[in-house]
């Protein structure tokens, strides 16, 4: 698809539905959208780049592949059982998927979309994170209270690190020296030295911590607590909690506000927190820790991923079987894309 075609496609896909919502009559809105298309083109706005978005569908045993320029599913592939955590190898040639009920991590070729191999993962892998250097993969084994460290190239287990009950979220510092693992029933963030595979400290956070995410400069790690309803911002040097961020949404009971996925923009200014059954993503100013906005997305919003240019944020909405697309600059939800059943994890490739 040539750039101007992409732009047309995007404008049709993105703007037309919104206009039809505003204008009512579909025919009229389409004409208006086309008029706007030309107006915008004339003004020289750059189109959305074509990135590839991969979404695991926990219930369907599939991965939906979305073209970010078209904002539609272009392909669905059948993978192993109960796919959840998903990430890309450093060279983006491999797609790595936690296939929890198979007790393995599957590796798929992103070019040919064919199965390459399985990695040993320990039982029930749920989430994982790749070391910035590219080869070591840290896998949370929710059923076994350990983190398994795997050599991706050699398909071998390098180490097992004992942590608290039900390890889940994993964050790694930008320099790769520090791994943070959350354990859901122990309610801690474990700080692990990646050189020695030993725990150097444990920070007690609120109930059922789900996700740990470092800021791009490595100065903070954000930990969401699903049942506690808060996000703890921790200084990885002192392991002190710098701030606890609470959420309040009119008309939504406190119990339903359950922070899970956390992503921080590459410039470090905005944090996005998925609030589960509150069906919203909170936008937080990282300088003040204040919630700037709540964006209404699909039901039980779970995990988040930016496009490499940080223009779009994709959210997996577990119970409504769709993915919401957020315009990061305008802080608006552009549209939702229907995927498989119980979408869980999401990752975006630069190609």
């Amino acid at each position: 698809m040539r750039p101007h075609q992409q732009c047309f496609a995007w404008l049709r896909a993105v703007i037309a539905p919104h206009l039809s919502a505003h204008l009512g009559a579909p025919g009229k809105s389409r004409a208006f959208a086309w008029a706007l298309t030309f107006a915008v083109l004339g003004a020289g706005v750059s189109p959305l780049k074509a990135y590839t978005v991969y979404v695991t569908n926990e219930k369907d045993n599939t991965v939906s592949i979305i073209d970010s320029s078209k904002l539609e599913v272009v392909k669905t592939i059948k993978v192993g059982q109960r796919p959840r955590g998903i990430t890309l190898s450093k060279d983006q040639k491999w797609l790595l998927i936690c296939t929890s009920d198979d007790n393995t991590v599957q590796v798929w070729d992103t070019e040919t979309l064919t199965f390459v191999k399985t990695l040993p993962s320990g039982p029930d892998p749920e989430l994982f994170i790749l070391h910035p250097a590219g080869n070591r993969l840290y896998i949370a084994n929710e059923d076994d209270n350990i983190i398994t460290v795997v050599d991706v190239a050699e398909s071998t287990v390098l180490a097992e690190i004992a942590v608290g009950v039900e390890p889940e979220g994993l964050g790694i510092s930008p320099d790769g020296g520090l791994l943070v693992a959350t354990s859901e029933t122990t309610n801690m963030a474990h700080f692990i030295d990646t050189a020695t595979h030993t725990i150097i400290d444990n920070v007690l956070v609120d109930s059922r911590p789900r996700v740990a995410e470092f800021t791009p400069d490595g100065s903070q790690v954000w930990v969401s607590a699903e049942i506690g309803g808060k996000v703890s911002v921790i200084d990885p040097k002192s392991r002190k909690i710098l701030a606890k961020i609470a959420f309040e949404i009119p008309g939504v009971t406190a119990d339903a506000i359950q922070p899970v996925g956390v992503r921080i923009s590459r410039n470090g200014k905005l944090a996005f927190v998925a609030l589960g059954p509150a069906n919203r993503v909170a936008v937080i100013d990282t300088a003040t820790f204040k919630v700037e906005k709540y964006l209404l997305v699909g039901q039980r919003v779970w995990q988040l991923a930016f496009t490499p240019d940080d223009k779009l944020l994709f959210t997996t909405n577990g119970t409504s079987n769709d993915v919401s697309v957020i315009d990061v600059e305008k802080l608006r939800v552009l549209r939702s894309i229907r995927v498989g059943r119980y979408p869980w994890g999401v990752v975006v490739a630069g190609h």
Partner: protein
Amino acid sequence: MPLRRNAARNAVLDGTLRTLRASGAHGLICSCLLIATQLAFPAMAASQQSASQPAARQQVAIVLARERRELPPPLSLLDLPAADDAVAGAQLAINDNNTTGRFLKQEFSLEVIQAVADDLLRDVDARVRQGVSFIVLDASPPTVLALADRLKDRNVLILNAGANADQLRDEGCRRNVVHTAPSRGMLADALAQYLVWKRWRRWFLVAGADADDQAFADAVRRGAKRFGAKIVQERTFTLDPGNRRADGGHEQIQEQIPAFTQNVPDYDVLVVADEAGQFGDYLPYRSWDARPVAGTQGLVATSWHPALEQWGATQFQNRFLRLANRPMRALDYNVWVAVRSIGEAATRARSATANDIIAYLRSEEFELAAFKGRKLSYRSWNGQLRQPILLATPKLTVTVSPQPGFLHPTSELDTLGSDKPESLCKAYASP
């Protein structure tokens, strides 16, 4: 010794070795041996306990006290309780507490006492004199009250995991008792909300003649009134179906049940109150009218179900299965919640002192993640754990109450059971 028990013991030891390998903590060897040996040799427990605990760690001792009662066997072989009913739930929670505890230098130990009421009171009292402050209790309401009154001047918290009597939460409430078992009121309200949501508003209530069944029937009547259902007819089941086991047997039941349920004004659902499971399972597929059965049989309200997999429960069920070699029952769950509550409060208070743990457990800050999708905490007006209630068939969860649309100004969970304005509990009103 039966095979099953050996398997459970091995599972305990296995779990210990695993934790041990991970942590290298010396103290854990002994505390787990303690758990394992107690199954066989309860008397040895006390001496081992004192020998096993290094001073550097904070120690929290928990007693699981179970009253041995003469209970009639259930109708179905599938409902026979396991030999380690409740005990396995406690063991899992102790393991979970200790996995967390090793990061904070806290250690939790469990002693199980199973005895008839008088012996139980005496043995628990003896443990309390030795310094135990946490009693997780599975006993009949009179025994709960007797123990609470006997220990009322001591620094002890009793966690009632077995008795569902509303009376223990209302007029009969005691300041030193909290309840992880849901009350009858909570169970009946959970059911009532769903039946009303389903628009099955006309109920035919069938209750057993004994006091427990009548108390459940009272809770059902109250639920109907609260949520807008109508009981079109009530009947007391006094039919004696005979011994539960006989060669043949279904032939006569097949004749008796239609006759018993004949000539009822039109109704939507048959609500049964049969807590001991003596006749309720005879009703489905045998009633005169083709109607669903709910209550203590059929669609049941319960704190836990062995097939629940939502909210991360899968891992929890797996942990239990590995430990006990059987699925988790509601009593196991109630006991797990009790022992985990003590662990969670100790973790948060960063203390092993009974006063600190009890104060934290009762505070507004207390919250427990317990695989039900929202935080659990204790009601300030009667010590009842607020929790979602599952409605389930024998194989699967059907729904979870509170139901959508039943609103409450502070917590929707408080639409189930005795709410603050209607509470009759005086002991909690003046601490």
